[in-house]
Every structure is written in C-alpha cells, then in structure tokens.
C-alpha cells in the first residue's frame, strides 16, 4: 500500500487586478499613501532609467544593457520591502532596486558603461550589497553565504537574492535552496519569472508547473506573487523578509511577470517570439495598474525622476576613465611583488 506522507501546495498572491480593482481584502499597506507613492515613483524611475540607458547604448555611450520594461514591479517591490540593513544580491535586471537601496544612478551607468568603479558604491547604505551578478544563478549561493554570516553573528537581518526564471535550472540555485532549508538561513530568493530566458520560454526551461515549488523541495517556504502587481510583490517579499529576519527561515517568491523588451540591447526577440504575446503582456502593465488603483497623477513624479536621471547622466558622461594601472589596483590587498613589474606596461 502507498500512503500519503507529504502534501504540498503553491499559492499565488494577487491583490489588485489589471484594472487596479481590489481582488479581495487588502493589507494595511494598500492604504499607505506614502508607500504607494514610493512604489509608483520607483517604477517610473525604473522605466525612465531603462529608456535613457537604451538611448545611451544606441548612441554609443553605454555598453550592452538589459532593461526591466514591463517587470518594474519586481525590483521596486523587492527594494521597498527590504530593510536598510538587509543585503541585496541582484542579477543584472534590478537597477531600480539598486537605486532605491541607495546606489547612485551614475554608478550604475558607469558599470554598464564599462567602468568597475560603478560597483564601488560611495553610499555607505549599500556598502554590503553585492554587485550585479552577470553569471546566472551563482548569486543564489552568495546570498546564502551572506545569510549564513548574519545567522552566525546572531543578527536579525537577511539577504535578498533576485534571479530570473532561467537561473532556476541551475545547480547553484538548487544547492542554495537546499542549504537554506537545511540551515534555516535568513535569505529570500526572488525569482523574476518573466517567461523568457533569452529565447527559451519557461515551458521549455522546466517540467515543473511552478518555479516556486522548487523551494518546497528544499524545505523552504514558497509562493507565487503577481509580479505585475507591485502591492502583491511588496506584500509577499515583505512577509518573507520578516520571516527571515525573525528566525523563521528562507522563502522563495516566484514573481509572475513578462519581459516586454528584448533580452538586452544585443538581442532581437522578434526572431523567436510571437508579437501578439508581447502585446497581451503590455496590457498587464504594472505602472498603469498602480495608477488606476491609487488615482495618483504620475506627471509630477515623472518630471522629478526625469530631472534626477538627467543630472546623473551628466555626471556619468563627465567621468574620466581610470589610468590603465587601475586594473592592478585591487587585484589583491596589495600588488604582489612578482606582478608589480607589469604595472609599467
């Protein structure tokens, strides 16, 4: 006889629909006007930043860049849900989260413009945040390590790791989830399921019905959130952050959204993706939805973020490149004697 020894379920959190109408009772945050304004401002900033970055890239003033068009609710909801003393472990599509946490916009531009100083972060508020992870999925383990250090020191903090749907196919992510469960680590894994990993749709990425259930296999809490509903993302990630900070262990939050743009400025999604699918995704726009819900006039916020970005772009364009010897400057804490002669070029 076979007996049922364990059963599992995955829930998806949705708070407002595409027209901005409540889908049920809302959490207290939904009436916090200051919070909602912050979320809206963050998403407007994300969109304006992306647009400006693509413009800079197309005019030869920035390197390859990956936008977050259509999925802005995820980085913004994540960053606003975090506490200042938590540590963000981002992938390469969370610029908005980095900026909200305190990374200077010109620093982000500098990094994407090919200058390591963009990861030096002058603002002490983000001194411990990890740099952008270009290698997909490795950062899940780094986040687990950050969390293990916090736990080791009995600190009530957590690490928040953001990754894409493609990353969940990697062993690193399984290993991170596994150790997070085994050690009850204070870490939150946010999976931005934007349905595409470059040209691979999520249905060909995995046979699992949800990406969230990969968390269950490692014994951590797991749920989905509507990734185009910033209130749902904020609520789900916020709950996970509080759980982690209070010793309740790790959570995987799968945010369901859609990558409206190409993978990056070097990609042309028209070669592999049905445009009708993209048009449908545009109707679920997270910014329009929050505006409909809140009734906030976005114009003054848009004007303010626009000015902020232009000022940062001007500072970015004025940055003088480092001298070539800078490539040795931080290889080790001091340049090893055997390497020193290479400084002379």
């Amino acid at each position, binding site marked *: 006889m076979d007996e049922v020894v364990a059963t599992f379920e995955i829930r998806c959190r949705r708070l407002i629909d595409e027209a901005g109408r409540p889908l049920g009772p809302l959490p207290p945050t939904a009436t916090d006007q200051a919070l909602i304004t912050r979320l809206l401002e963050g998403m407007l900033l994300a969109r304006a930043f992306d647009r400006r970055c693509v413009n800079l890239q197309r005019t030869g003033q920035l390197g390859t860049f990956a936008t977050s068009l259509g999925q802005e609710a995820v980085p913004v909801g994540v960053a606003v849900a975090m506490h200042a003393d938590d540590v963000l472990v981002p992938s390469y599509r969370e610029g908005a989260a980095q900026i909200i946490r305190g990374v200077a916009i010109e620093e982000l531009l500098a990094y994407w413009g090919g200058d390591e100083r963009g990861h030096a972060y002058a603002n002490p508020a983000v001194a411990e945040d990890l740099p952008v992870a270009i290698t997909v999925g490795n950062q899940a*383990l*780094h986040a*687990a*390590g950050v969390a293990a250090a916090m736990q080791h020191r009995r600190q009530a903090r957590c690490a928040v790791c953001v990754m894409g749907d493609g990353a969940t196919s990697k062993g690193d992510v399984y290993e991170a989830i596994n150790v997070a469960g085994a050690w009850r680590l204070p870490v939150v894994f946010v999976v931005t399921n934007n349905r595409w990993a470059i040209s691979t749709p999520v249905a060909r990425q995995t046979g699992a019905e949800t990406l969230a259930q990969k968390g269950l296999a490692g014994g951590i809490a797991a749920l989905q959130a509507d990734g185009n509903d910033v209130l749902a993302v904020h609520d789900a990630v916020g709950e996970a952050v509080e759980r982690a900070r209070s010793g309740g262990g790790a959570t995987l939050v799968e945010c369901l959204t859609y990558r409206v743009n190409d993978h990056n400025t070097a990609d042309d999604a028209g070669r592999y993706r049905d445009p009708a699918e993209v048009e449908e995704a545009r109707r679920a726009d997270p910014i329009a939805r929050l505006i409909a819900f809140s009734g906030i006039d976005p114009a003054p916020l848009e004007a303010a973020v626009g000015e902020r970005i232009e000022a940062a772009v001007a500072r970015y364009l004025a940055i003088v490149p480092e001298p070539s010897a800078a490539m040795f400057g931080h290889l*080790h804490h001091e340049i090893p004697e*055997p390497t020193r002669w290479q400084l002379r070029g």
Partner: protein
Amino acid sequence: MAAAGLNMVEAITCALARALADDPDVLLLGQDIGRKGGVFQATAGLHERFGADRVRDTPLAETMISGLAIGMATQGLRPVAEIQFLGFLYPCLDNLANHASRLRTRTRGRLTCPLVVRTTHGGGVHAPEHHSEAIESMLAHVPGLRTVIPSTPARAYGLLLAAIRDPDPVVFLEPTRLYRATREDVADDGVALPLDRCHVEREGSDLTLVAWGAALYEAREAAATLAVEGISAEIVDVQTIAPFDAATVIASVERTGRCVIVHEGARRAGFGAEIAAEIAERALTSLLAPVERVTGYDTVMPLPRLERAYLPTTERVVEACRRAYLYR
C-alpha cells in the same frame, strides 16, 4: 610552545586551531569535518573544541561550499572551506574564477573575499579515481587567486596561517602523499610564512632542481644520488605557485646554469612551462643546458595500478639532471 613530531595533517590541524582561537571571524566549513574530523582527520577535535557553529558540516555540494564561503567572506568572516579531494574542486572553479578572485577588483575594493579553500594534491596513495590529480596550473592561470602547496609539516603550518590571514582568496593544496609521510617539530607560535616566496631548500652549485608538493621528495632523493656522483644540486621549493616568485628561481639558475623542473601534473601547460618560460626570458645567457621538465604525462591520471608509472620518479629526475649536467 612547540609541538613535537607532527606530521602534515597534525600541523594543519594545529594551524586551524590557532586561527580559530586567534580570530573569532575564522570558521571552517566542509563535508564531514565536524564530529568525523574530516576524511583525513585534518579537523580532528576542532568541532569539540570550537563548536558546530565554527566547525560546520555542510550538505554534500562542492559548488555550494565555494559559493557560501564567498557570501560569508563579503560579510567579513574568514571561511576556511575543505573540499575532500582535488578532483572535487572542479565544481568550485566557477565561483573561484568568476567571483572570489575578482570581487575586490570588480568592486574596486568595496567588497573582499578573504577565504581559503583547502583540498588535497597529487597521487601516490592508491586512492580511487578523481582523488589524485594535480591541477595547480589551472588555478595559477586565474588572476587574483593565490595557490599554495606546502611540502613539510612546519611549512604547512606557517603557510596555512598566512593563507587564512591573507585578506584575499587562497587555494591551499595539501599533498596527500605527505599527510603522514614525515614528522618534524612544529613551533605552534602563530608565526605565518610569507606568501609568494619560493623556499631554497638545499644549496648547490651545478644545477637547480625546482619542485613543489610531494614531488619535492623525488627531487631530494635525486639530489642525494647526484651528490654521490659529484653533482651538486640546489633545490627550490616553489610552495607558493601563484603569484610565482620567479626571482628566486632566476637567481639560482644564474648561479648554477642548469635547471630541472619536477611536478606531478601533466606536462602540457603544466606550471613547469611557466617556470621554463621565465628562465628563457630572464636567464637565457646563464644557461649551460636546455631546461628539463620531469612531469606527469599528457594523459589521464591512471588508477592506482599504474599511478607510479605516471608520477615522476627519482630515476627520471636523476636522468634528467645527468642529461643537463653532461650537455655540451
């Protein structure tokens, strides 16, 4: 305080204990390093003495161990990770090369990675497949990563302390064949040896034998045989593979005019090639004979029945030295 007659494993345990006692940020992590004390007993007794928080058994996942150590290190801890055998280090190379070695550079010093990965090195102990490799040249090719291979208990103690105290990532390769091969008095004085410095193990005037790890013992035996024949060999123990202290080797070759390099790893692109290139560039006019390399062969490390045929033998080293000495 001197610990009398320690073998290399015991010297390593002694250094780990010293590091744990000296610095609350040091912690050990790895598979079976807790109550078991590690597959080679390198952490024996440390779990009891320092607790499960600081001597941490991990799930069985090498990639995880290396990635976790990086995250911990960014928070200012000094993790010392144990990978059971060098053949199991490959999953860690992604984290070592893409992250640990470049985190300081890619954040311009904002974040650092003061971690150590300890694992075994080399063959000769009749171990199963994947347990006997010598891939130091792969590691040496990664900028920002230090690679250290001790050859005696006392130097293992001093170099391991240096590796743990170094504020950047170090891979510490422990020659399996030497773990219990010899004993010597080790002063448990907390004194670290310098990194990136070759050690002149024996002075000589006719040729320079360059070796590291367990192959140093073949070099020693060869030097003793050659001495009987009236050939005086100097021995340089490279010990810190990367960054490589070429100056010490060059200075020796300038005096002796001949060089024989001995290592267990495969010949092609082995670290001996780097040393030979340095000599060609910087000491060509001092050479009285071509540089010789006595190495593992360019084939897969065999299982135990053939491993002695693969590893450099004293005879091969002696022959190479005679060829160099007699070259006209």
